[in-house]
């Protein structure tokens, strides 16, 4: 347990625990949301477990990687307030029965998390071939909001449409939700694909993401956490920080670093290199999200 008077991040830094990289720099501002009780907390982002993927050259430990990540989260002390999975829970399959089998297995593994407050969202591998039908059967809505200790979380679905669009209906929903938030509300967006054009040549974009960003831009304290690209990437659009997470099955090359977007082969001399997960500590004054990148094993 951390001593009182230190933030969890300060404690981990001093103790030399876990953190591989500390990344700061998200939204800043007064964060004076007033009536809602605020306190510091942290949550865990797990992304792109691609359950069902097979490729011995890419990940010979495919059947245990997610389980190891769950065990690593369970070993944290104190435990996070909640866990989010930012999409591609399963690896895609053309067979609807196999898709559901993979989702059932994934759900069983994720149920071993000690933290029971877990938020799921789909990636294109889960949802693009059936417009999110199987995902909804197992995990519920594909876009939704929730509030936690003064932070408003918005989950945006940019994958149920195989054309990688959020769509007019969801954009109207987003606009209505944002209209109900104070301008200085602390807002965190969780999504799968980058909302901005990170590298459209590899399909790393959301077709109507600029419309979502324009809506979010009207608020002072917005930070986006996403997956899809299986690596860290930190980017600003105006005053909005966008942070992508590492994946839990295979790493992908940096954008434009090579001609093809092919998974990075497994390095036997450094197992799990390029894979990982993160904890995110929400700090109140100023509004700030401290990211600690953590290894699978």
């Amino acid at each position, binding site marked *: 347990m951390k001593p009182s008077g230190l933030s969890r991040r300060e404690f981990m830094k001093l103790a030399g625990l876990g953190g591989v990289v500390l990344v700061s720099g998200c939204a800043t501002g007064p964060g004076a949301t007033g009536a809602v009780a605020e306190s510091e907390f942290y949550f865990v982002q797990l992304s792109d477990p691609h359950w069902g993927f097979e490729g011995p050259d890419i990940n010979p430990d495919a059947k245990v990687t997610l389980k190891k990540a769950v065990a690593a989260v369970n070993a944290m002390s104190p435990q996070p307030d909640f866990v989010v999975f930012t999409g591609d829970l399963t690896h895609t399959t053309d067979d609807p029965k196999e898709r559901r089998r993979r989702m059932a297995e994934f759900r069983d593994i994720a149920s071993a998390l000690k933290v029971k407050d877990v938020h799921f969202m789909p990636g294109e591998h889960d949802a693009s*071939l059936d417009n999110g039908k199987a995902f909804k059967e197992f995990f519920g809505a594909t876009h939704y909001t929730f509030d936690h200790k003064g932070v408003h979380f918005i989950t945006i679905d940019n*994958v149920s449409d195989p*054309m*990688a669009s959020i769509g007019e209906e969801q954009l109207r929903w987003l606009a209505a939700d944002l209209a109900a938030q104070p301008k200085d509300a602390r807002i965190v967006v969780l999504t799968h694909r980058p909302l901005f054009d990170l590298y*459209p040549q590899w*399909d790393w974009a959301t*077709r109507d993401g600029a419309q979502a960003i324009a809506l979010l831009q009207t608020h002072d304290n917005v930070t986006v956490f996403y997956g899809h690209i299986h690596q860290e990437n930190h980017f600003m659009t105006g005053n909005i920080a966008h942070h992508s997470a590492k994946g839990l099955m295979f790493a992908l090359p940096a954008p434009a670093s090579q001609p093809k977007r092919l998974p990075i082969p497994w390095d036997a001399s450094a197992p799990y290199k390029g894979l990982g997960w993160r904890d995110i500590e929400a700090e109140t004054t100023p509004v700030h999200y401290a990211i600690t990148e953590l290894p699978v094993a």
Partner: protein
Amino acid sequence: MLKAAAAAALLGLAAIGARAQAKPRVIPITARKFTYEPDVVTLKQSEPVIFRLTSEDVVMGFSVPDFGIRGTIIPGQATDVALTPAKTGEFTFLCDVFCGTGHEEMNGTLRVVA
């Protein structure tokens, strides 16, 4: 009378202009899970072309982000996408409609030469 003559003259000029313009070369490209045929296409800079896209199985996309063009390919019908490339080089075209297990590898190369 004078108006009619002027209109006829304008129409004639327009027809001459149209004849002077190069007719776009039509390049058929067939998409199927999870390839394009052909997957390497060579064009000349400033050459107007039309990609005539068809799909043999499911809905596919054809996107060339470097030129800001794309089309959705519906099985059973042809989709035309026009391009007059202003720059030379090698550019990726890819499927931007998630189409299945091999979607991420479904791409090709556009070579634009001087």
